[in-house]
């Protein structure tokens, strides 16, 4: 019933139009801007649910792109306005719609200056992110991929903390550096195939050298976006200086664009090089898991700690994807490959919920105390029992406690790693210890213990608005943790497709 409507276009352009509307009506009326933004965000989320419901789960249906929209865009380059979604896209679009609503609710109180601009930037960002997840034309993808830097640049730069200008310039230039190399790769592929569609790129019949060059061009772009060690240094700065809403979007969704890019570009277009150089990415991921975990341990700024924890957790996404490649290459072990890839995807979604929730929690504290230093807190549980409950729940999910979403993805990736190489799994499993160390130590210092100072004693518990935000995140975390089947079912066939293609490439 939904298939007749251009759902993906609606999802992209509804928030974009919303951004213009909000700018127009919200100039002198902050509340109108907030309500209009919420309306557009909720509407977008509803459409994304419709997308999920309209998704054809049957094996034949899910094996191809759905909701396809194809209109000529630039005839001279044979670039099309081409959209399509498989299970992975649908899951990520749903995550985007969900998180955006919560971010807007969460920003209701804390954002008091230039409200309409902030809200418009958020909506524009949402539309662009959905565009990234829905584009099946490389040029269109690139346009969305780059354009989302502009609203994020503005969000961090205007509403950020003390060193916001440094952080936002670093963020912009860092990301731009990565993506422009990808642009050269895309132009090369365009000259080779004569068009810009991803499907054509995948069938370009590239030689080993070409594949290697393109693989590294893509790797730079997406590794910076994820971000992977050693190109992660923009993230802690951007997170620390960004307003809460910006941090949540950044951690929950923008980082996923990197992981998504690996699946859409590196694997299908350069399958041989991806297998050949999988060890590079696996090594980078394992270093991130251990080393970044230790870095997180020594942070005295809560937001920075969670930022580093994000890098360590996103390393599981890249690890899962490239472990799968290694498994296909060395053992032809499709089942384990599928498991690793599936784990990576679940980890992406789960990290979206968990990191979004953690940053929201820190935002709640920051709004009250205006400090992010861990030493200024202590015994928050005494004055904010509800908040403490949520915070501990999300902390457990961050650690990867069974029953929370954090467990599912990491467990699957570690299982798959075992089949590839015992030592990979051994190192990866360190996260269970280090992650627990830095997260629980954070909880101990901030939440538990005696009330540290007068300011903490005066804290009041979360208000209904914050309740809604944290509650919704909690539902998501528990739902995936206890019953991940709908999510894995949604992405299962699409992942099979990607893994199957790898096998073909090998043959």
């Amino acid at each position: 019933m939904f298939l007749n409507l251009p759902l993906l276009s609606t999802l992209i352009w509804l928030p974009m139009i919303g951004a213009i509307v909000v700018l127009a009506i919200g100039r002198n009326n902050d509340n109108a801007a907030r309500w209009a933004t919420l309306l557009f965000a909720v509407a977008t989320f509803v459409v994304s649910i419709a997308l999920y419901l309209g998704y054809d789960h049957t094996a034949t249906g899910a094996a191809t792109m759905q909701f396809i929209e194809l209109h000529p865009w630039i005839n001279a380059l044979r670039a099309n306005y081409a959209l399509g979604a498989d299970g992975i896209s649908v899951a990520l679009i749903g995550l985007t719609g969900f998180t955006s609503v919560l971010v807007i609710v969460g920003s209701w109180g804390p954002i008091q200056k230039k409200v309409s601009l902030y809200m418009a930037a958020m909506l524009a960002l949402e539309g662009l992110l959905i565009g990234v997840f829905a584009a099946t034309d490389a040029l269109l993808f690139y346009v969305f991929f780059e354009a989302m830097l502009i609203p994020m640049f503005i969000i961090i730069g205007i509403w950020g903390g003390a060193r916001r200008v440094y952080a936002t310039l670093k963020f912009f230039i860092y990301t731009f550096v990565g993506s422009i190399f990808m642009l050269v790769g895309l132009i090369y592929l365009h000259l080779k195939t004569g068009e810009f569609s991803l499907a054509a790129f995948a069938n370009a019949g590239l030689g080993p050298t070409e594949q290697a060059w393109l693989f590294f061009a893509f790797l730079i772009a997406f590794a910076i976006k994820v971000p992977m060690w050693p190109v992660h240094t923009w993230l802690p700065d951007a997170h620390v200086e960004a307003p809460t809403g910006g941090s949540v979007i950044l951690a929950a969704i923008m980082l996923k664009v990197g992981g998504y890019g690996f699946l859409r570009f590196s694997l299908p277009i350069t399958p041989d090089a991806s297998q050949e150089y999988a060890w590079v990415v696996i090594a980078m991921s394992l270093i991130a898991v251990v080393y970044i975990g230790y870095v997180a341990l020594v942070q005295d700024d809560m937001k920075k700690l969670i930022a580093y924890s994000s890098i360590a957790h996103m390393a599981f996404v890249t690890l899962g994807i490239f472990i799968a490649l290694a498994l296909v290459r060395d053992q032809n072990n499709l089942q384990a490959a599928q498991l690793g890839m599936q784990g990576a995807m679940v980890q992406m979604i789960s990290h979206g919920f968990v990191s979004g929730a953690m940053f929201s929690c820190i935002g709640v504290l920051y709004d009250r105390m205006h400090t992010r230093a861990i030493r200024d807190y202590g015994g928050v549980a005494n004055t904010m029992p509800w908040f403490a409950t949520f915070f501990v729940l999300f902390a457990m999910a961050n650690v990867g406690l069974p029953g929370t979403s954090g467990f599912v993805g990491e467990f699957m990736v570690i299982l798959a790693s075992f089949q590839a190489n015992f030592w990979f799994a051994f190192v990866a499993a360190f996260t269970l210890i280090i992650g627990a160390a830095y997260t629980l130590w954070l909880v101990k210092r901030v939440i538990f213990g005696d009330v540290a100072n007068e300011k903490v004693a005066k804290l009041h518990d979360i208000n209904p608005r914050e309740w809604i935000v944290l509650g919704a995140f909690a539902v998501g975390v528990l739902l995936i943790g206890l019953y991940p089947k709908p999510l894995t079912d949604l992405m299962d066939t699409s992942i099979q497709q990607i893994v199957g293609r790898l096998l073909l490439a090998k043959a």
Partner: protein
Amino acid sequence: MTFNPVDLLVLMPELVLLGATLLILMLDLFVEQSSRALTHWLSLLALAITALLVCVGAPESGERMLAFNDMFIRDGVATILKVFILLTSALSLVYGRNYLRERKLLIGEIYLLILFATLGMMLLVSAGSLITVYLGLELLTLCSYALVALNRDSSVSSEAAIKYFVLGALASGLILYGMSMIYGATVSLDLATIHASIGNVAHPNLIAFGLVFLIAGIAFKLGAAPFHMWLPDVYQGAPTAITVFIGSAPKLAAFGMAWRLLDGALGPLSGQWTLMLAILAVLSLVVGNVLAIAQTNIKRMLAYSTISHMGFLLLGFVNGTSAGYAAALFYIISYTVTAAMAFGMIMVLARAGFEAEEIDDFRGLAQRSPWYAGMMAIAMFSLAGIPPLFGFFAKLLVLKAAIDAGYLWLAIVAIVFAIVGIFYYLRVVKVMYFDKADESALALPDDKPLRWVLSLNGLALVVLGVAWGPLFDWCLRSFI
């Protein structure tokens, strides 16, 4: 050599512009308004009518009309270049009017000089012989020197004008010297004849000698490094209303000249000149982008950014095919439209006695006027080449042209310096959005025509960013 009255029809737009300019010259003597409303609107009308005639009488795609023994060519390239030359000239008139009035510089001569310069540009892009190239070029540059020197009481302006004049004369000399070599080798001034006979001349060295001089002259007119020395001083020294003119339309004309000479006359030697252009491109990218970072004066910064954009433009030229020229043409159009807007913004902020030339003068603009700040941000992001704006697709096309021609290394140099480049464009956005406005900052003027035209210009950057296909198709068609 007989006179054929039909030739006059081919030249109709130029003749009409000439007639109108002479008419305005006479009428202006009797105009006593300080606002020069009559001169202003008549000039705009003259430009509009000329543009209309350019389009109405345009030859079919792939055809060319020749006049005066092939000295004058009217083809697709001439049409598209003339349309945008007339458009950007009109834009500069609109943007500069208030600025000049507040400085009591709004004299009739400005209109005449700009109109004559426009005529020179139209002649230049239609040139079919070396003589016409030189005539058009001199008409353009002589008017430009006078325009830069317009503010007689300003020592900066005078210095800039002298510098421009001396170096410009030198460049004209280089071009003329190069032309004489080419003529010596081929015994022809006609571009098409040169093209046909250049492969089998008795003295190929003579041709190569002339080629080097021509390229140096072209690089000077474009403002490509290492022939860029005049550009920052002239951009900074000239009144901003003149900078907007010099920085936009003449770049289109210089493109036309470069194409006529390099492809039209010296096409068979492309193996020799593409490498020269590639080296010029690298130097321009390096010099332009690196030096722009150090600037605190926004006019100077935009001048260095111009140099870097000329590097990008040459990327399209090294391709040496019509697809490459179309990409370069698209690039130069995108650049001039965006640059005109950026200089227009400087004039929006300027006031009598306050030039708004420093980057810091844009501080906190987002608080004072969100609309203007948004427009300037669009211009900066477009110059930086961020999608979905006009500038991004222009960069995409020239990069594609360069890679297609086997200049992958050049494309990579270009993108590395594009990364350097975004820093200084972002700095302008940063100053506007993230810094607080000075208490002393003056309110922005409520200049309706300026506001409207500037907004249209800004929206064009967005619209052409999303739907640039038709414009590019037009560029491609011109080169058939």
